[in-house]
């Protein structure tokens, strides 16, 4: 942690990310091309689900990454509130839309996958519903951080929301599970069987890594933009 504190200075962070980003973009692009080719062309179709199983290579990584993204948001919020790191607010502002987009991609691919598998685009399944609520938490964070004329005020308000939201996520998950068992006793088939074949697992893990790289690259790029925007705001206010 102590080593990361030196990056808390926005100007220093900007120099660091400018040096890292070009290489990161190249690695990300290569990883995505390889992963997509592996998942969509090389990997064998599932014995039950056929080619629709390939949706999994987008669906599962975006699901875990958007959940991880919310944890990142809460950690950034906590470090803004505790250490007042100027960068944490800017980075949270950059992270929230990326996480929300991942959550949206997860929901959309999930419903496209649900159509051939369950015969419907949407069911009020516990997992789907709690994911929808996670998406709403992201939307609340984005709206709140941008609702003030004073951006730093928005950053701090959104930081408190992210921390409270992260504490609430398990409670929401638990209550939705309860609600689902009450309303809908028949459960829905999940990923075809208890284990997943290595021929599908490896491209899945690869895509997880590739999309994580994309997440990081997008956040770094957007953080740079936010630093520039904050500088502009400050210089405008000084005039």
């Amino acid at each position, binding site marked *: 942690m102590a080593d990361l504190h030196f990056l808390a200075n926005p100007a220093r962070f900007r120099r660091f990310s400018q040096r890292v980003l070009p290489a990161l973009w190249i690695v990300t692009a290569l990883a995505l091309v390889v992963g997509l080719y592996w998942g969509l062309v090389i990997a064998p179709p599932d014995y039950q689900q056929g080619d629709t199983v390939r949706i999994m290579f987008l669906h599962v990584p975006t699901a875990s990454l958007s959940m991880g993204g919310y944890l990142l948001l809460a950690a950034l919020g906590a470090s803004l509130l505790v250490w007042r790191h100027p960068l944490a607010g800017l980075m949270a502002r950059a992270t929230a839309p990326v996480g929300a987009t991942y959550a949206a991609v997860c929901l959309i691919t999930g419903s496209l996958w649900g159509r051939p598998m369950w015969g419907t685009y949407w069911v009020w399944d516990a997992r789907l519903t709690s994911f929808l609520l996670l998406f709403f938490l992201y939307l*609340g964070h984005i709206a709140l951080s941008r*609702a003030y*004329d004073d951006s730093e005020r928005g950053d701090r308000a959104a930081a408190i929301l992210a*921390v*409270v*939201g992260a504490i609430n996520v398990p409670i*929401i998950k638990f*209550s939705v599970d309860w609600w689902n068992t009450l309303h809908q006793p028949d459960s829905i088939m999940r990923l075809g069987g208890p284990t997943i074949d290595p021929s599908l697992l490896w491209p899945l893990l690869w895509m997880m890594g590739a999309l994580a790289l994309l997440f990081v690259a997008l956040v770094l790029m957007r953080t740079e933009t936010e630093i520039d925007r904050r500088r502009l705001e400050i210089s405008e206010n000084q005039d």
Partner: protein
Amino acid sequence: MAFAALFLRDLRLVWRRPGDVAVVLAFFVVATVLFPLGIGPESNLLARIAAGVLWAAALFASLLSLDRLFAADHEDGALDLMLLAPWPLELAVLAKCAAHWMVTGLPLAVLAPLLGVAFGLDAESLAALALTLLVGTPALSLIGGLAAALTLGARRSGALLALLALPLCVPTLIFGASAIEVTATGESVWVHVAILGALALVSLATLPWAIAAALRQAGE
């Protein structure tokens, strides 16, 4: 002492302008009445959806009254005095939320069974409805209080408040509405009441600090 003074002050403010509370309760009644009009007068269906409709309407009604919770004090400077006062801001927050609950949560819990009769709920469900609202609404007041404090001075704060508070209110809504449903199957309602009580207590133990933090950074 400070707690009681602030609590009584908020109640007195409402007492002098009872219209503010009446509007919230009227909203609750009108919003609830729209459902039979939209869905149709079939009594079986209405009795089935009554719990969810009444709980959701109570949630909206309690949110509706929240945007003035701190805004009025923010405008006339009373909030600055609370920030400067030597007693903990958390206590002031608690007093204000308690007063809010007294004038919305409590009347809603009293009013809801009357509307429940119109939806054809039996006596047991009516009792469960009143009980769950009584136990669950403090959590709604506190969650809404956090949203109100976070959106203090924001653009479009009313709509934003609802967007922030609603996902966080989901657990309370689920356990409140499902408690009434289980009375129909003969299960004990106390499990749900206990969980609602737990949610309210967790909110009570954590949210005053979050609300106070939000108010402090609003005052900076």
